[in-house]
């Protein structure tokens, strides 16, 4: 309500004389505040204040009937000693690792789709984009059927080559692999799009020169495409890792929240959800949330440090 009052009041405050003095010293009176205030107040209430609160929560224990008691660093000590936490980190890293394997494939696919004059290119792009558009819960349920140990189509295909397929989604290690494969399957659309834009920025003269020198397509790919595309690859790597660290929907839908293999398979975000909203241990969940922030921060920092070794920015 205060927001609209502010917006309405502002015209009165506008200063006509200021407007005439265009140039570096120009200010826009109260207008900028009216433009920014609705968004900024919302951001304060729903984002900035909650972040501060979460930090506070991480030092408290939530009572059964509401209210928090200060317990110092207990949650943090507990987190550091909690084997489930390390398991969740490991699971999240395994998932991210498998999804990241899609990036080299996406580079290859993008270089094919973006060949000048290739027919059906937009159809291919749409196909690779389908998994990105589809609701993760819905498509994960389809994969849940396909991975079914008794009648799933995946085990049927394996049986054709003489392999007796396992119960994918109820075997601890395999459940995570199954979910990761679905993540891998869905990772191409956005990557191809970003890499495609990167490919368009590579001057065609370089390819022509390479062709004149007799470079094979493979050689052109390796010596022209790969180095000049490395900034886009780096960007895709960053967003893939950040996205992978948010693994929740696919896990929830493919395994089901009450699956016995969940404790051994859960990601950091599922661990957070389970702690905060199933076990209702919100103080500890706040600690996990902050730990996720720290871990993503460290991983992203490491990537920026390592990029000097392989990203080509000339």
């Amino acid at each position, binding site marked *: 309500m205060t927001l609209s009052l502010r917006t309405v009041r502002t015209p009165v405050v506008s200063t006509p004389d200021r407007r005439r003095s265009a140039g570096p010293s120009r200010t826009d009176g109260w207008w900028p505040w009216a433009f920014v205030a609705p*968004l900024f107040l919302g951001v304060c209430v729903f984002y900035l204040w909650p972040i501060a609160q979460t930090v506070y929560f991480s030092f408290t224990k939530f009572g059964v009937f509401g209210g928090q008691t200060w317990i110092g660093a207990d949650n943090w000590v507990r987190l550091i000693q909690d084997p489930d936490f390390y398991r969740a980190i490991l699971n999240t890293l395994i998932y991210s690792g498998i999804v990241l394997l899609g990036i080299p494939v996406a580079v290859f696919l993008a270089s094919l789709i973006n*060949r000048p004059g290739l027919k059906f290119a937009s159809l291919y792009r749409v196909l690779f*984009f389908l998994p990105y558009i589809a609701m*993760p819960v819905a498509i994960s349920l389809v994969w849940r059927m396909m991975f079914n140990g008794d009648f799933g189509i995946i085990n049927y295909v394996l049986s054709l080559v003489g392999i007796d397929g396992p119960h994918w989604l109820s075997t601890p290690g395999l459940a995570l692999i199954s979910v990761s494969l679905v993540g891998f399957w869905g990772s191409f659309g956005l990557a191809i799009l970003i890499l495609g834009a990167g490919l368009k920025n590579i001057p065609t003269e370089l390819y022509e020169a390479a062709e004149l020198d007799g470079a094979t397509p493979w050689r052109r790919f390796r010596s022209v495409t790969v180095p000049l595309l490395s900034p886009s690859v780096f960007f895709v790597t960053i967003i893939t890792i950040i996205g992978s660290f948010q693994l929740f929907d696919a896990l929830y839908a493919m395994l089901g929240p009450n699956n016995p293999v969940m404790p051994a398979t859960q990601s950091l975000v599922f661990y957070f959800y389970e702690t905060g909203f199933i076990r209702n241990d919100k103080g500890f969940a706040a600690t996990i949330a902050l730990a996720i922030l720290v871990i993503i921060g460290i991983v992203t920092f490491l990537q920026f440090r390592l990029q000097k070794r392989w990203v080509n920015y000339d």
Partner: protein
Amino acid sequence: MTSPTLRMPGAQRSPGRGSEAKRYGSHLFAHIVLVLGGLAMALPFLWQLIMSLSSNAEVTSVPPTFIPRELRFDNYLAVFDVMPFFSQLGVSIWITVIRVVVQIVLCTFAGYAFARMRFRGRGLMLALVLAILMVPSQVYLLSQYQIVQNLGLLDTVAGIVAPGLFSAFGTFLMRQFFMGLPAELEEAARLDGANPFQIFWKIMLPLTGPAVSALAILVVLFSWNELLWPLVVSTRSDAAPLSVGLASLAGVPTVNYPVLMAASVLTMAPILILFIVLQRRVIEGLAFTGIK
């Protein structure tokens, strides 16, 4: 720009090879790879459709039944008995529409101010907004839940929608867009005595089409598909959006598989159809946001 080393030992070996023939050959290879890849993308959707039209016995048969004996469209009707589909569809549509409209308005205004206006505290406010982009949603989720609970908004559209009305990402996107527009546009209007609001409304707003549609596409996708936040704030199934409804349907043991598949088709269909109709715009829009 350092040109990569292109000279190689075998360079002289193929002086006479016709580049046209080579192109044709390599395009054939590209088509083979892309068709196989495209099939790998599309087959789960096709299989989903087939399962949704089969009987439960056919879905659980070994070997699988690839072509159902008869197409059972009544699986789709059964969906409406096992979940409050239309209330959930209503919730999904409401939260998506409200978010799109409000985010576009707020982000466009704020993005413009951050890009083109001068005021005290601009740098600090922008830094605070952008800092949120680096924070995973879990960090504010617990407290957002408390706020929504204290306002008595659990199980309401307002509760699901509230935090998502304010988007740091959208603000950043719009700011980047406005930064890229030439300053002369505003200068001329300013000399004519237009006030900042008139400049924004009459000169800048009409140019925002590409950025606004890109933002709208992202918000629609995100809003429709999101699970964690609505799962947390909706306890009653008729107050939940489709994503939550479908996820909980999967946990009901009495629901048979074809009906579950039919429900998943119905749930994702609106967005998939929208995407296929608007594919060019969607892909351009996402490219716009991905690269900016």
